């Protein structure tokens, strides 16, 4: 079936099987491998992307067909004009990543969180990221990174 998805502002039209998951559409069809596949069954959050500007979704648990006609933001679309997004800068400054595998999902989940709550408390951030697993950092620096980005966005 024909699927048209605007990814990071770029229109992508592909002929795919209905069973193609959005994560694989992004990685294999659009060649955007920043979206990672971890558990592949909605538990870990590595594959989170943002749909239509405000909704964080686990792209391993959504068919590409469901994104037909929608806009998707992936980690590749965060920086603008060579300048890191405030969240990316936060992760850089606060050492919010080690191996980096969970980072794209963390960034996009936090992106949607800040769209709904521009001034989240530490508890809000911890709660908002509870569907994203990180096995390296112990989360503290990730929380600090999001706090920095939220502060900088004022």
């Amino acid at each position, binding site marked *: 079936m024909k699927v048209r998805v605007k990814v990071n502002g770029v229109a992508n039209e592909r002929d795919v099987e209905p069973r193609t998951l959005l994560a694989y559409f992004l990685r294999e069809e659009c060649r955007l491998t920043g979206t990672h596949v971890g558990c592949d069954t909605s538990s870990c959050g590595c594959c989170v992307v943002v749909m239509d500007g405000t909704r964080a979704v686990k792209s391993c648990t959504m068919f590409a067909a469901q994104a037909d006609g929608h806009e998707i933001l992936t980690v590749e679309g965060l920086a603008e004009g060579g300048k890191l997004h405030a969240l990316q800068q936060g992760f850089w400054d606060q050492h919010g990543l080690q191996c980096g595998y969970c980072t794209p999902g963390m960034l996009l989940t936090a992106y*949607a969180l800040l769209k709904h709550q521009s001034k989240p408390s530490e508890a809000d951030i911890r709660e908002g990221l509870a569907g994203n697993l990180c096995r390296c950092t112990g989360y503290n620096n990730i929380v600090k990174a999001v706090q920095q980005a939220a502060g900088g966005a004022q």
Partner: protein
Amino acid sequence: MIPAAFDYFRAHTIDEAFAHLQQHGGDARVLAGGQSLIPAMRFRLARPAVLVDVNAVSEFDYLRINGQVLAIGAIARDSDVERAPWISDRRWSLVRDVSRVVADPVVRQMGTVVGSLCHNDPAGDWTATALASRATVVVRGKSGTRRVPIDEFLVDSFATAVGEGEMALGAEFPVPDDRTAGSYQKVERKVGDFATAAAAVQLSLNADGTIRTAGVALSAAGPTAVRVDEAEKLLVGQKPTAELLRAASDAAWKRSAPQADLRGTVEYKKHLAGVLVARGVRQALARLGVQA
């Protein structure tokens, strides 16, 4: 694993979705949030030949208080409930509690209330909540639309009153009166896990402080969420006391018939059912300004 192949139809109206379901009968499944269905398909526990995607059916996209009921459309997301403008009203405290512990915050941005009821997982959160709230599910069948009380809707594990070719259109939760509060108590190993045990409680009080109505239900306590009738009967008409809470808790312990798994033994889960009902009743009362 990649799911088994299927035919995909995107519906734009309720009539269109219903026509696809009528045509494909038992081979077809409705795709709403997909947060249970897609993982089940990925594990090949489910292999529907046809998916009818209802995400573009705007008639299903509502969450509103309609006179006497909170009406929840088939594609209203868990996160819509979590962020509803009325969610902090004490009357909705049970719904508020549950909206914050279903799955995880990202899954809630896709997952739907009605889909969760239709999936009818033995450890579902919305099913127990719907029982304690005395909710109704609106089902469209060949001979028209009917309202099914939640007790009749939950038939067995992963089975509901929605028959082949039929479709749940929405759910209706009665609007509680001013002297109502509830509580959802869930023990889970980690955020996003299924409940090890959970209890949903909703209580309303009379002016004299006696309990007017009681809804008490358990999840992860049998093939489906279950109403603890005996606890409800014990509570109604009584003034809350420590003794009464103990009796309600014992009734929950008795009613709970869980399966042992990695989350715990039967004995442990039964114990939790009793403890969580007591905690739920106590918290609902505390929200009403009553100590027990």
